[in-house]
């Protein structure tokens, strides 16, 4: 084993421990803010593994997008609804985590068996002398042109949708449309379903009185 391989092995071990540790932290911490910060740790470790795989551009993009933008967005969303609520512990609360653990462990065993059993077909193409970024650029504008252009439409609509859903609405006064519609703005026209136990007569009386107003 030469030096380079040794460095690679050690780095992989460090990154793997970091990733699994912080991923466990994300799931197990009850404080959601800690979970969010540890998620950033997971992303950083993944980016390190990309570096080990010679994918430098993907590693940079991972840090730039996931740590720099997505994780910050997650943190903002958490701080936005910074409500501390103490939930009463449910009876038999251990059932759900146990079930989840069993299912996850089963999935892990299945997938790792699959990884070990399958004779993978390694790509025989030699690594080009070009840097990866140039290669990615060439693929973007030849065989992956269609998804590349479609991604711009996707981003446009994500932006439009995000703005329309997240912006504060300046609600027009109901006076503009006097009693032609009883429906409050930005809701479904269907009335919510009646809950079981409320007799239908009572609600329909309410509706009648609302209509006559």
């Amino acid at each position: 084993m030469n030096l380079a391989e040794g460095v690679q092995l050690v780095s992989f071990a460090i990154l793997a421990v970091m990733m699994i540790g912080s991923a466990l932290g994300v799931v197990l911490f009850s404080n959601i803010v800690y979970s969010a910060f540890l998620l950033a740790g997971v992303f950083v470790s993944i980016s390190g593994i990309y570096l080990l795989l010679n994918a430098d551009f993907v590693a940079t993009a991972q840090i730039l997008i996931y740590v720099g933008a997505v994780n910050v967005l997650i943190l903002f969303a958490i701080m936005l609804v910074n409500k501390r609520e103490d939930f009463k512990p449910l009876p038999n609360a251990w059932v759900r985590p146990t079930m989840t653990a069993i299912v996850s462990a089963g999935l892990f065993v299945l997938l790792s068996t699959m990884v070990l059993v399958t004779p993978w077909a390694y790509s025989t193409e030699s690594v080009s002398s070009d840097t990866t970024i140039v290669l990615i650029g060439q693929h973007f504008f030849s065989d992956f042109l269609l998804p590349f252009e479609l991604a711009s439409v996707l981003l446009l609509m994500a932006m439009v949708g995000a703005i329309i859903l997240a912006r504060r609405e300046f609600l027009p006064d109901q006076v503009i449309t006097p009693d032609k519609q009883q429906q409050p703005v930005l809701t479904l026209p269907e009335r919510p379903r009646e809950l079981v136990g409320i007799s239908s007569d009572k609600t329909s009386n309410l509706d009648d009185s609302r209509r006559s107003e």
Partner: protein
Amino acid sequence: MFVLSGYEYLLGFLLVCSLVPALALSASKLLRPSGGGPERRTTYESGVEPIGGAWIQFNIRYYMFALVFVIFDVETVFLYPWAVAFHRLGLLAFVEALIFIAILVVALVYAWRKGALEWS
């Protein structure tokens, strides 16, 4: 297979990075007078006394900015390979990138017109 070539600088940089806080903390430990009252334990806020906790509810405006930032961040990542490989790609790629940018300019104008970029 893989050789960690070209990452020596990154490794050195990481080492320096991890040394800096350790050095700073141990240096101040050596230099500063020991002891001190409860004043020393408070957060340094440029001389102003800190009020309340740090975990307060954020304003929704931050969220809007972060949202718009994510989308333009992704766009930048998409355009970066084009810029690097520009000389090899030729005219057609230029036209294709222009279509990409034009669609995203519409997104920018939309965000602008709808007031998503305003701090109000």
